[in-house]
């Protein structure tokens, strides 16, 4: 796994998948949601501080290459999930920029596109389309997806009757069978029972081995140190370290 910074001469295959440079993100807290609030606030501007700004990320920079699994580590509120949302394009950065190459699949929230009133089958097609698959691609992968989820008996049942485990199994199965170049994974490996978790981890290793770039957010430090070679440690939105995952895990444990 290549963890060094880019060399002077880059061939096409050497290009990184994700380039993050001087990235910054701030949030304005206590935002108002009606015009009345906004107008009232205008008149009270002198009385109360008008803005409550929270810096989620500051001057973050790194690159991710094909076949690399990078963990984002840090305590709650360190900016990990915000960073993942910026890479996926859900949010836009305030400073700096992110460049990506190829297709991204955000497993940011498994099953975000699932609707309880549709059957498992309909949800597979809808979610696969949301993740960028065509009808033919979904049909080709459908049996594989259902087999992976192990809920074939319930595939034509409405999802609202599913147990939470069944729901997550199906959603995860769809997500890992889309064929992106970059996988963004946020705390979704706590899926299902232990045998299924093992299966998911095996699948993620497979993706990595096949040359996909992975960015993973998780609080399961043991899993992270096994799955990822490299970890970026964040503290209050600033990169503290970027190196082998074992070192970052040790540093984070020391922080606690």
């Amino acid at each position, binding site marked *: 796994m290549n963890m060094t910074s880019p060399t002077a001469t880059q061939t096409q295959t050497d290009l990184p998948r994700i380039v993050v440079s001087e990235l910054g993100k701030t949030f304005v807290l206590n*935002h108002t949601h009606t015009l009345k609030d906004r107008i009232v606030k205008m008149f009270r501007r002198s009385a109360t501080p008008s803005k409550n700004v929270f810096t989620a990320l500051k001057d973050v920079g790194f690159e991710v290459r094909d076949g690399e699994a990078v963990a984002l580590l840090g305590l709650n509120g360190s900016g990990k999930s915000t960073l993942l949302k910026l890479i996926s394009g859900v949010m836009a950065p305030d400073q700096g920029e992110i460049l990506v190459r190829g297709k991204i699949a955000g497993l940011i929230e498994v099953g975000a596109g699932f609707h309880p009133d549709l059957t498992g089958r309909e949800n597979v097609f809808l979610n696969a389309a949301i993740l960028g698959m065509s009808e033919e691609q979904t049909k080709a992968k459908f049996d594989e997806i259902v087999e992976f989820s192990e809920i074939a008996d319930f595939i034509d049942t409405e999802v609202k009757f599913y147990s939470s485990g069944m729901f997550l199994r199906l959603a995860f199965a769809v997500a890992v069978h889309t064929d992106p170049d970059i996988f963004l994974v946020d705390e979704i490996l706590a899926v299902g029972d232990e045998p299924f978790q093992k299966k998911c981890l095996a699948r993620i290793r497979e993706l990595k081995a096949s040359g996909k770039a992975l960015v993973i957010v998780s609080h399961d430090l043991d899993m992270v140190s096994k799955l990822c070679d490299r970890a970026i440690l964040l503290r209050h939105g600033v990169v503290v370290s970027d190196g082998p995952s074992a070192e970052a895990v040790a540093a984070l444990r020391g922080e606690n």
Partner: protein
Amino acid sequence: MTTVSAGDDVFVRPGRGAGLVDVFRRRYLVKLLVRKELRVRYRGSVLGLLWSYVKPAVQFLVFYFAVGVFLKMNDSVENFSVYLFSGIVAVNFFSEAFGNATRSIVGNSALVKKIYLPRELFPVSSLWVAMVHFFPQLLVLLVGAAIVGWRPTPMQLAGAVLGMVIIMVFALGLGLLFGAVNVLFRDAENIVDLILMVVTWLSPVLYQWTNVTDALGDGLAWRIYQANPMTAAVNLFHWGFWYGTTDGTAPLPPDLLVMGLVSLGIAVAFLVVGQVVFRRLDGRFAQEL
């Protein structure tokens, strides 16, 4: 989730789509979103899509008796039932497309917050759902017109199609604009309800255009009245579906087709403004919802 169709060695900024062009590329997803929307709306409903026939039919009957019989419009307008209904379907189509598009971003917040999609997908899906509800009404209208002896000319039919296009473009433009603003200020939904009421009563659905010129003359006030794209759309619907059922002596609005094209231009301008505002606010959707 971003689908980058550019070459594999091209870097792009995630989350910067091409707006409505991206929606066109993802027609399959639009189709599934529309199907989902229809399924969800009629869940647990015995009559299902039949409701989109029942509602306008009842609305039509109420207006027919209240305005046509009690206010005696039937005496002054030939085939008043067809006249009224062709206006009502136009306004229903516009109201549903515009109203649902306005609520579409907030209504799909689970997706907007978690997965990147070209967000224009949601207002466009709303427009499609409105079209699905519009066609049964159109069918009822055609049957009604046929019963009273409808003989349309090709030009009249083309006029009706122009009317539909005006409504679609105008509703999508306003829907993009207010759908985006609604994320920041939920007041937008109330403003939209007001706009819908004003547009409904200011287009000649319940009365004839001559009632307006009788009251306003044909000066500036009449020009302002005509600038409402829905006025042109309703006039074109009357021409397409009602005029062919009459003896042809009813006066047509002046410059009917020219005003139709001018209205289409106004609607396109709204679409451009809506898209520009939508893209300006798009980057803030996920954090404001």
